[in-house]
């Protein structure tokens, strides 16, 4: 019995996700479960996963956030539009310019926050305001409609569309094959990881628990692969999301620098006194955030096939919510990439489900706000309980 409660507690958000998904599947009479909506879930929320990964790194350092990422997505999109459409520069060079803009902004922001000790939310609030205005001004100066399009095919095919695309409803074999290969990799990694831990004499979970986990993971991957195979193939953007998530999963759990992010969030002073350059870590958190924001902007521009003045509105909110709902502490020091992925998916499911049910966009905003507040309160109360134990 106690075991069941621990499992429940450790994986609360996964259970909530499953329940919410079932709820919307029922309410939409199965519409939620169609191949097209699986595809929509991924393509519509790709930006959330990427931004939330960057936000996670910022939040780990002590609950610090970046309010400017939404406006910066818009700004980078405008730069890309000017490069590729107005000035007709090459795709490669344009992408490099956009990345460079991100690195420059990230460095400035990181410098201001890390070395000048400006509170992050003020520094990024200034960016939030400035970049929205600047982007709008740039867009209206370069286009009569305030939106720059069409982007070249070579660009769109890198960040949107599908791999080995087939007609919708036709079973896409490459997609399923990739799904099966992924399953094999996941199983191999889990077994190897366990062996390694046993060898080193670390604590391991019970065999049954691992097999259960494995079965669930394989089932979810196969379900996605199967559904996506019927929606025309694997969305290109999914590859970007998976790449970002895997890289940061590795950084946060396996590298020294990744552990530093946690220790700073846990106790900044102690970390500094143990000889770690805390300023450098803060600097990197925000530089990294800006670079990921650019990658997110790539996918957003490609999805809409245009650079708009309204692009990126409220993205900061989505990223922060994904982290907080995914169990990232609002005070820093704890949170995982996997948790964030669950949080982002949960929010994506809620958004998609509400849209399918025809819930008014304004109520959607209200519900988003309530979910964010509820998740934080839940996390704080849960931690309080833990401390009492």
């Amino acid at each position: 019995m106690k075991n069941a409660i621990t499992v429940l507690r450790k994986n609360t958000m996964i259970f909530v996700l499953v329940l919410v998904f079932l709820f919307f599947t029922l309410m939409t009479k199965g519409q939620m479960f169609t191949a097209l909506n699986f595809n929509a879930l991924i393509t519509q929320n790709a930006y959330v996963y990427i931004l939330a990964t960057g936000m996670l790194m910022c939040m780990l350092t002590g609950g610090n956030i970046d309010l400017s990422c939404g406006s910066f997505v818009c700004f980078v999109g405008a730069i890309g539009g000017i490069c590729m459409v107005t000035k007709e520069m090459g795709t490669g060079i344009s992408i490099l310019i956009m990345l460079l803009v991100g690195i420059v902004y990230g460095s400035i922001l990181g410098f201001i926050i890390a070395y000048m000790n400006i509170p992050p939310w003020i520094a990024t609030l200034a960016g939030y305001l400035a970049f929205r205005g600047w982007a709008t001004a740039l867009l209206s100066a370069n286009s009569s409609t305030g939106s720059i399009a069409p982007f070249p095919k070579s660009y769109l095919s890198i960040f949107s569309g599908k791999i080995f695309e087939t007609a919708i409803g036709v079973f896409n074999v490459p997609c399923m094959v990739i799904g099966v290969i992924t399953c094999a990799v996941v199983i191999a990694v889990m077994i190897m990881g366990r062996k390694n831990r046993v060898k080193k004499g670390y604590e391991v979970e019970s065999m049954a628990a691992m097999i259960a986990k494995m079965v669930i993971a394989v089932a979810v991957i196969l379900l996605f692969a199967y559904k996506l195979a019927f929606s025309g193939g694997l969305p290109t953007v999914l590859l970007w999301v998976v790449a970002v998530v895997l890289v940061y999963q590795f950084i946060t759990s396996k590298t020294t620098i990744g552990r530093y992010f946690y220790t700073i969030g846990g106790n900044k002073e102690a970390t500094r006194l143990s000889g770690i350059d805390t300023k450098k870590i803060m600097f990197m958190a925000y530089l990294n955030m800006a670079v990921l924001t650019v990658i997110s902007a790539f996918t957003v521009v490609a999805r809409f096939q245009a650079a708009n003045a309204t692009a990126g509105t409220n993205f900061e909110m989505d990223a922060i919510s994904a982290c907080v709902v995914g169990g990232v502490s609002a005070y820093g020091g704890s949170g995982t990439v996997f948790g964030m992925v669950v949080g982002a998916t949960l929010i994506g499911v809620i958004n998609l489900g509400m849209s399918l049910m025809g819930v008014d966009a304004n109520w959607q905003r209200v519900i988003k706000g309530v979910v964010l507040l509820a998740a934080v309160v839940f996390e704080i109360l849960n931690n309080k309980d833990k401390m009492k134990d």
Partner: protein
Amino acid sequence: MENIKIADVLKKYTMVIALILVIIFFQVGTEGKILFAQNINNLISQNAYVFVLATGMLLCILTGGNIDLSVGSIVCFVGGIGAVMMSNGNNMILAVIVMLVIGLLVGMFQGFWIAYIKVPPFIATLAGMYAFRGLSNVVLQGYAVSVTDTAFLNIFGGGAECYIPDFFGGETMNMTCLIAGVLIAAVYILVTVKTRISRKKKGYETGSLTGDAVKAVVISALIIWLFYKLANFRGISAALIWIALILLIYSYITNKTTIGRYLYAVGGNEKATRLSGVNTKRVYFFAYANMGLLAGLAGILTIARAASAQPTYGQGYEMDAIAACFIGGASAYGGVGSVMGMVVGATLMGVINQGMSIMGINANYQSVVKGLVLLIAIIFDVMSKKEKN
């Protein structure tokens, strides 16, 4: 010795000097238009909401650099409710009371989570920012609702008649306004003298006599000049009276009352304050409940000024209020800041906005400038603190 003194004065009044320089800059840039009587009166009416919101924000910031991101949405929500009530034929007094009570309730709701559950303020109010923006749309059903109640408009500073009538029937000039200006200047000098005498009596430190005298003369001259300008254009507006009322009340609260001093104490050192027996939770709760109430008042002033309520009202207001506080010298870490400083900050922002509008600068670049001004002010603040240490 003399040199050090001048440096001290410069440091103490940096923002006042910056304000004067900015006014001179725009005076030249707009060929004198910025100091037209009508423009000065407009500056006051247009920025009434900034003064009111920034007062509330100041109290939140004092408690430790905490902010309220939801005020813009609350302004819109409260304004929407009031406009809908009045257009449904409800009594104006009832509408005003309902608006203030709802503002207060919203503030208490957020204050509860922040003070008693310890939800980080920026997350709690970010949730509020989205939820109440959505709710305002629900209340207004996406439309603009006009406010036609003339009594309401006159009292809260909307329409052409919202000025104090001239009791003395001045021909070219509003005599009431001019007399009021002289009286206020006289009261100011009296209070200064009285304070000085009472400080001397109690043996407190007092500034140099010449310093105080110069200050009193400059300020009274400014007051008389301001009212002379106002007298040339319709006189004292209702908005000015509301601003003055709020500033006086909160100057008193922050300087002379126990709860006011607690705000500073909590921001200076929360733990020490708690250990000396102050209920710090109640102080946080007070700050946010009060913020809600003032957001309610700002909502009233906003819909009166525009004579309507629209779902887009209040966007970016939180930014204006926060910027006014920081430019006015409030510390981003709490514990430092004054109502008078905030007034200078709010005026500076207002002058910059109006100057740029008169010069015909694109509205998008205005938000870029706003962001930069905020950033510069905060960097300046943090840097000058470092030197002190």
